[in-house]
């Protein structure tokens, strides 16, 4: 059940992440409780769990945006726990946010210039615009873009910042099926070309379509980690994810997700 994906060491950009006994507490409430997680270099891991499970808090802790009560975080074998957010990002952590991840007062081109400025490699901005199907919108103000285009732009910004670890917080929230499908392909392309990808989402069909592995969180703890098939086949996990009262609906939902993504049951 635990991670078996081997690190793709041939890809220089990708970095493994190790979270060891991480605890984040807000007064008496433990948002993350002694959580440990290993993510091999180059993998694409989906992080699921009910609301309040601590998924976004884990991202914030990795980025240094919340104080840690205990534990360590290592990127590429090096501890980053004591570093500022800026230094962690410069070590190679990129992210997209649930909301407010783009700069509304910039144009699309300016957004990519901004994101690429501190990148470890030179990027062809025109090429990146083409790749993410944003070339025709290059000089348009971000505030004029549709939600889907903004999400696509944010992924493009994350890519040109040359991360070695890319954290995506609900990358397809609010998207339609076509846009979601396009986003799956875009994220897969980004992952294959470079960084380790960890993403949070509630759309199980999307998670199954994208993730090589899934980690399940509940009440600040890691419940389990495994392949999409292993996770989907575990009724206890599905019960936690959908809620015990909806246990009967779970099997149907899983089946529907599998049919939608073409994953065998």
């Amino acid at each position, binding site marked *: 059940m635990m991670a078996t994906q081997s690190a793709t060491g041939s890809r220089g950009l990708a970095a493994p992440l190790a979270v060891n006994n991480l605890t984040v507490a807000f007064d008496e409430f433990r948002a993350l409780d002694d959580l440990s997680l290993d993510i091999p270099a180059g993998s694409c891991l989906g992080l699921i769990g009910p609301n309040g499970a601590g998924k976004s808090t884990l991202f914030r802790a990795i*980025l240094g945006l919340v104080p840690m009560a205990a534990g360590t975080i290592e990127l590429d074998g090096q501890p980053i726990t004591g570093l500022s957010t*800026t230094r962690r990002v410069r070590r190679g952590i990129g992210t997209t946010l649930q909301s407010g991840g783009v*700069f509304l007062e910039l144009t699309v081109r300016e957004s990519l*210039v*901004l994101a690429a*400025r501190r990148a470890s490699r030179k990027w062809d901005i025109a090429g990146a615009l083409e790749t993410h199907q944003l070339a025709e919108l290059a*000089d*348009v103000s971000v505030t004029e873009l549709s939600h889907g285009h903004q999400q696509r732009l944010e992924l493009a910004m994350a890519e040109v910042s040359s991360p070695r670890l890319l954290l995506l917080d609900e990358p397809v929230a609010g998207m339609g099926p076509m846009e979601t499908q396009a986003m799956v392909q875009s994220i897969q392309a980004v992952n294959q070309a470079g960084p380790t990808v960890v993403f949070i989402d509630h759309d199980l069909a999307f998670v199954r379509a994208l993730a090589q592995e899934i980690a399940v969180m509940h009440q600040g703890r890691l419940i389990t980690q495994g392949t999409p098939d292993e996770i989907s086949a575990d009724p206890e996990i599905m019960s936690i994810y959908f809620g015990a009262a909806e246990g009967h609906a779970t099997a149907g939902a899983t089946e529907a997700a599998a049919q939608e993504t073409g994953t065998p049951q």
Partner: protein
Amino acid sequence: MSVTVARQRQSTHAFWRRAAAGPSPGKSILAVLLCTAGMLIFPYAVSEYQVLVAISFLTFAIVTVSQVLVWGFGGILSFAQAAFFALGAYGYAVIAGNLDETTGPVIALVAAPLVVMVFAGFLGFFIFYGRMGAFLLGIVTLSVSLMLGAFLNQTGDASYHIGKVQLGGYNGINAIPPLLVEGTPASTQVLYFLTAAVLLAGVAGVALFRFHRVGVGIRAIAENPVRAELFGYNVRAYRLSIFMAGAALAAAGGEFYAIWGSYTSPSLVTMQAVTLPVVVAAVAGRDRPIAAMLAALVYSAISVNLASSGASYALIILGVGLVVVMLVAPGGVGGWVAALVNRLVIRIGTRSAESPHTAASQDDVVELGSTPGSGA
């Protein structure tokens, strides 16, 4: 053939839309060139006295443009720009007054903004590295400015001097050394052109800075500092740098003010003086340096004209203007005018594309996929 014509029309529409869309380096350069032409012609169209008076307008425009840099682009609501302006004037007076009369003014001209920049760096370090919020930042810069004014006001005693220059308390410093050109004080015209050159260089620099990658970073930090930090930007260092640059520009305005009047006084840092650049920038559009420059010049002209007729309604007019602008066009008059011009450009451009010489038949448009009846 007719399909080609319809495509040409679509392409023309797209061209005019692109031409009218948002700020661009080309538009900024064109606007600065037009302003340069106006300022070059001005001294030859009016009397020498009017040129002399206009120099003080230019110095106020410089401090207003510095407000745009710091507030409009940097997102820092600073009430310290007038204080930096005053420090520039005092700095020039003190440095030039302690050196010989030939080289002293030139050295002071370069050194005063640098000294003010260091002071701003010291102040800004505590503000930005102390992670002060936007509200507190405004309060602190306002307090520092007013404290500076209060301090300068009580320096009337002879013990308050730097080298051989007395600070002069309420009366300030008088008989400030002039700039010398070939051994004689610079003429009104020379001083006008020097001040205008500094103003135009500042306006062009600020206007084009928004398109430079560092300027893009500054604008991003102003909009969402946490997100900018997540792209690896050192938010505090960027903010401190822009604060210091704005201080140097304001100080440059202050030293030309000192040269122009041969005096400087604490009246440069009263409550009114401290808030004026902020209000004028807000009325013009706080991220529009050219509009801010023009607004500062217009406000100064109205203010002087009303004062000469015995009335002092300029501030009231400005206050009413601010309220109206905030209600009608919160982005400022500059943004409102730019939007009007942009609409006009699109209308004229697309009309020319739809003239009988280029119009395609309705069939052509249908052929290109438009809804029947909605085309030509």
